[in-house]
């Protein structure tokens, strides 16, 4: 198999980063990205892109930690380079505050982010309703810049990108040797994964350039994440809601909750409301599968179900998926040489 043809379905942070990893690990592969949406209309574009991991109950912690560490290391290097501003990657410091002391004092990722430590009494004074907190420095991936930067690198490496809605993976079997499924919420329809469910998130993106620090309530519902041009205020976690329409009452509620953490937000301008459906699953599905129909086989690598933690683990899961693509290629080459025998 001289030049395996790989189709990556999905152009959010998972699809694009997986495509990029495949071009890196398999330079002879011809990679094509197919998606019905590209930036700025993907779920990733709604997300703040903060590297603060979500914990998946069904994925082994050491695997999640490995994914996060790889992602953090990769982005850390970019943030420190001349490309940082174009890629939209930047360091940001801040606080995670808790109304009651959390059961586990140290999250699994505390030694991956920078300078992690408990907040001092003086710092906690700023949050009269909260009794405990963590201070640390982490990275943020601003979208669209990060997705556009990935697209640019893909195009420079010869990857083609097409707007196309794939309704059945089998559509692709005649044109491509391997299909990589990075369809996020789309996998619900596309592969009928009943474990996948939306967790609706509404956010506000506001102009408040004096906000330089992030603040996050440990309950995960209220957060303030300063990006390059806008600050993301959140949010909601509505399990099972498929609605992509902004809700006015929710907007008011998010704004009020964020202002109680950071009163100066009262002066925020230009409020934009966005909604995204976190493609949630008890565990991230990074897995190989061989589909079979009437004697024809189609190798598929799945990489979806990152829920609230897509940005935090994207590079780690992309590398794992690329590795699985490598296994698919070996399997194909193995079976084709057996066929020759």
């Amino acid at each position, binding site marked *: 198999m001289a030049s395996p043809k790989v189709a990556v379905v999905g152009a959010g942070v998972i699809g694009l980063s997986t495509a990029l990893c495949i071009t890196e690990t398999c330079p002879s592969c011809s990679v094509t990205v197919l998606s019905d949406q590209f930036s700025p209309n993907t779920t990733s574009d709604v997300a703040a892109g903060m590297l603060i991991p979500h914990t998946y109950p069904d994925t082994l912690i050491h695997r999640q930690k490995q994914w996060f560490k790889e992602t953090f290391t990769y982005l850390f290097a970019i*943030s*420190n*380079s*001349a*490309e*940082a*501003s*174009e890629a*939209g*990657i*930047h*360091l*940001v*410091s*801040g606080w995670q505050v808790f109304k009651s002391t959390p059961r586990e004092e140290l999250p699994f990722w505390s030694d991956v982010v*920078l*300078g992690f*430590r408990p*907040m*001092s009494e*003086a*710092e906690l004074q*700023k949050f009269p309703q909260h009794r405990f907190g963590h*201070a640390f*420095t982490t990275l943020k991936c*601003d979208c669209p810049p990060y997705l556009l930067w990935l697209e640019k690198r893909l195009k420079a490496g010869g990857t083609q990108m097409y707007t196309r809605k794939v309704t059945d993976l089998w559509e692709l079997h005649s044109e491509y040797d391997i299909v990589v499924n990075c369809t996020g919420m789309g996998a619900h329809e596309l592969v009928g994964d009943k474990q996948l469910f939306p967790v609706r998130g509404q956010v506000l993106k506001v102009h408040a*350039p*004096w*906000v*330089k*620090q992030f603040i996050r309530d440990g309950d995960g519902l209220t957060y303030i994440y*300063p990006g*390059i*041009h806008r600050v993301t205020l959140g949010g909601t976690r509505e399990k099972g809601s498929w609605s992509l329409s902004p809700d006015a009452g929710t907007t008011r509620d998010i704004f009020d909750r964020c202002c109680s953490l950071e*009163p*100066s937000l*009262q*002066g925020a301008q230009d409020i934009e409301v966005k909604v995204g459906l976190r493609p949630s699953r008890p565990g991230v599905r990074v897995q190989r599968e061989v589909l079979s129909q009437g004697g024809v086989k189609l190798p598929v690598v799945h990489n979806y179900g990152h829920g609230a933690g897509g940005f935090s683990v994207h590079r780690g899961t992309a590398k794992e998926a690329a590795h699985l693509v490598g296994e698919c290629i070996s399997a194909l080459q193995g079976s084709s040489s057996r066929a020759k025998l």
Partner: protein
Amino acid sequence: MRVAIIGAGVIGLSSALCIHEQFHGLLPSLELEVHADHFTPHTTSDGAAGLWQPYLSDHGNLQETLWNKETFDYLLGHLHSPAAKEMGLFLISGYNLFTEPVPDPSWKNIVLGFRNLTPKELELFPGYSHGWFNTALMLEGRSYLPWLTNRLMQRGVKFFHKKVESFQELFSQGVDVVLNCSGMRSGDLQPDPELQPGRGQIIKVLAPWVKHFIITHDLKSGIYNSPYVIPGSEFTVLGGVYQHGNWSEENSAKDHKSIWDSCCRLLPALQKAKIVGEWSGLRPARRSVRLERESMRLGNIQAEVIHNYGHGGFGITIHWGCAMAAARLFGSILQEKKQLATPPGPRL
């Protein structure tokens, strides 16, 4: 009781506000006026980035450390007030970087979350072996000075746009007390060989992805003669020049290149930052701040001057502590003049 403040930078305006807040209720005859030839946005305070941070060492000047603390605590208390945005006040975290171990600064317990940098953090800054991380405050002069001006105008304080040539000039007009907050040009009013310019130059850029201040230190070349990056609410300030004795307020191409090159080496992404301005200013440097009373005999009146100048590169950092101290000195003048219940006396 007419009080004239000379100077409309952060020191003059904050001293005026502090005195009015404390004494206008007690002294109905109190009339405050600000005299200056430069007002915001043309003062030295407007050019400063606005980061609250004292020098590395207080050289045993405990008084100044206390004034710094008073200022920080005062500002921290205002952080959640509705005025914060208008004041140009916000929290910011960042890094101080060194090429050798350095003793902890006098302000380590004043700022929030002061700690040493971890090895991984130091990887961000090749060439630097030690450093600090802490959360401090920004108080942007371009917002704070107009805010102070508005507060003063609301209180009926008058403003005079004119250069004051001598203290006598004001006393002969009937002013009772003068507050000398004339910063760099105090020497024009009264020679002071201890007051010298510490010339600085900055480049203003658009680099909104930078969320931390980064101040490098070269102990051999002295304070602020090493690159620094300070992100503000509208633009980011690049700097790193401190030239003792240089009175030039012209931007120097040589300094520009040095600042640009050294800051881009520190933060490679700055190469893509758009330059939107450049500015030079003179830090009114002095071995210690001159904050004291001076009584002058002019004819048959006792003229009182309160000096409050020489804040070098830490004017914003120390301003409120000094304003409070100046207000206390004013209070003692009032006590001596028994001004709280005295009819107006004869004039010159």
